[in-house]
């Protein structure tokens, strides 16, 4: 197994592997002449370094899945990119996702891969697992059939699966094995960038840690970057280097995991962390009042203000910009006062 060594730290820190700039992607629908616009990804700017695991957190329908689909270039109407850009840097070569579809197609799977939500839905139920590997990966690797097979088998052993699973049908495998296969599929070409959508959500508790350790292991071995989405903050705590919190289509806070758990700057982040139950602690957890905003008609000003315990008049009228603060960035008019509250 030719495990790619981690890139040198000195060179890796130079150029981020992903730059998302002022990205806006809206669901634009037209029903009988009435246009409806859902702003699922609204003005998001972020960069991801080489060798980094970046976690995106947020409640359902906050636009976090839309964001990573947009980053992956895997969107179809009615979701459209309205403004902004997504640029990858693969070994010095810049790739604009929405400017160069041809280059994007060539880069997919080789440089950029995707672990989809719900491992059972990835594998075709009426075909053996080996066909999935063949369909996804063979044309990106340029190997002879026997060499390809040997490579896949070696790769499966690395992720703790018996190569015999290649001959199995998906229904013969457990959920944990299928999720490992989905990860195996996404990493067999040793991509530099992996996108994962809820990689552990459908799994049994006992398998979850194994899969997280596997993701971490593969990432360290390949030296790739991972962006992943989950609403489970404990998963972020376990593997993310940095976390971005999405609320109603906007990035409201971003920072290193440890710092965010210790000193959340945004009241929404503070709520997410404070509401986590812990074994050994039965003090009553507050739940957030109100309901998640409707992205077709988001609240004015700061989108969190109707549910925010710290909201002041300014919050309802002016949208706070995402500004650097401490080790990360935060979009809140009262950012400094959260920790004290």
């Amino acid at each position, binding site marked *: 197994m030719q495990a790619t060594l981690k890139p040198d730290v000195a060179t890796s820190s130079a150029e981020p592997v992903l730059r998302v700039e002022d990205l806006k992607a809206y669901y634009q629908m037209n029903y009988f002449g009435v246009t409806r616009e859902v702003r699922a990804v609204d003005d998001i700017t972020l960069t991801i370094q080489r060798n980094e695991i970046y976690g995106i957190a947020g409640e359902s329908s906050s636009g976090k899945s839309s964001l990573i689909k947009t980053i992956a270039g895997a969107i179809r109407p009615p979701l459209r990119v309205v403004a902004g850009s997504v640029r990858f840097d693969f070994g010095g070569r810049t790739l604009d996702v929405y400017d160069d579809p041809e280059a994007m197609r060539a880069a997919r799977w080789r440089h950029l891969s995707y672990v989809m939500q719900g491992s059972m839905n990835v594998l075709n139920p009426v075909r053996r697992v080996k066909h999935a590997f063949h369909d996804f990966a063979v044309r990106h690797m340029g190997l002879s059939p026997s060499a390809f097979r040997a490579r896949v088998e070696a790769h499966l052993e690395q992720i703790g699966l018996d190569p015999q699973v290649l001959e199995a049908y998906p229904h013969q495998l457990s959920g944990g094995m299928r999720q490992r296969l989905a990860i195996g599929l996404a990493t067999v070409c040793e991509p530099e960038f992996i996108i994962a959508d809820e990689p552990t959500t459908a799994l049994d*508790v006992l398998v979850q840690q194994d899969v997280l350790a596997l993701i971490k292991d593969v990432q360290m071995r390949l030296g790739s970057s991972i962006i992943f989405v989950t609403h489970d903050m404990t998963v972020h*705590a*376990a593997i993310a280097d940095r976390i971005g919190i999405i609320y109603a289509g906007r990035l409201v806070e971003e920072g290193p995991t*440890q710092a965010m758990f210790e000193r959340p700057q945004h009241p929404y982040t503070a*709520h997410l962390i404070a509401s986590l139950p812990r074994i*050994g602690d039965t003090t009553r*957890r*507050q*739940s957030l009042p109100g*309901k998640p905003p409707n992205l077709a008609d988001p609240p004015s000003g700061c989108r969190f203000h109707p549910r925010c315990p710290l909201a002041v008049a300014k919050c309802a009228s002016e949208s706070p910009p995402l500004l650097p603060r401490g080790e990360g960035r935060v979009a809140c008019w009262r950012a400094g006062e959260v920790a004290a509250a």
Partner: protein
Amino acid sequence: MSALLQLDHVGRSYPVGGLFARGKMQAVKDLSFTLDAERPEIFTIVGESGSGKTTTARMILGNEVPTSGAIRFLGKDVTTIRSRGDRLAFMAKVQPIFQNPFEAFNPLTTLDFYLFSTARRFLGLKTRGEIDAAADKALQHVGLSLAEVRGRYSHELSGGQLQRIAVARALIPGPKLIVADEPVSMVDASLRMSIVNLFRTLRDELGVTIIYITHDLSTAYYISDRVIIMHKGAVIEAGEARAVLGHPSQDYSRALRNAVLPPDPVAARRIINERLERRRSGLAEGAG
């Protein structure tokens, strides 16, 4: 003490295999517990998938007949309920809440229909005003109101809100027991606590006993009074929740407890790194 629900050495097996390899799969083995009618509580059944917790729920609801033992609700064996009237009376007292609120509600039906038809069927209400009042009262208990729900479809609301509507629907007949099968596993972590807190309120304010079925030990610890841990159909540990989940005595319970990631980056990272070391040294590889 009078028993609300009594499970007496309940077992359930399913035939498996084909013509030549006939066998039995014991989904639930020799399960016994009693819930007290006078003292409402949150009784939690914990286990991984395939441990028999859903089969247990289905037997309590009368959807599945035990192959051995008996389930008695208020002293009456639930398998002897035959007539339509008895069945209705039983269902009014024992209400379910399902795992996936997006599947529990028909996407083409407005949500208020579920509330209204439950009110008509169990409370025998006829007039519009009475039905609306009953639905609104139930929705108030879960922090919603009929004005917010009327005419809405399931895709318009979040999972947490849908699950609260499911609880409101279950409250309409005035149940003594609610069987909630994985009620928060499809709900966002950030909305989970609102459902879990709601169960507490129901127990304290309405005196409803709740059977809370889950694989999530951290919420189980947070709200349960008593807990049983099931593994492969059998109860391996039972007792007062804080004691059992705080200091599990069986290896399997300990494994389950250790599978809960702590909401603390330092501790969670250490757990993942330990797993990683074990992976690498090729030792324990998780059963798979």
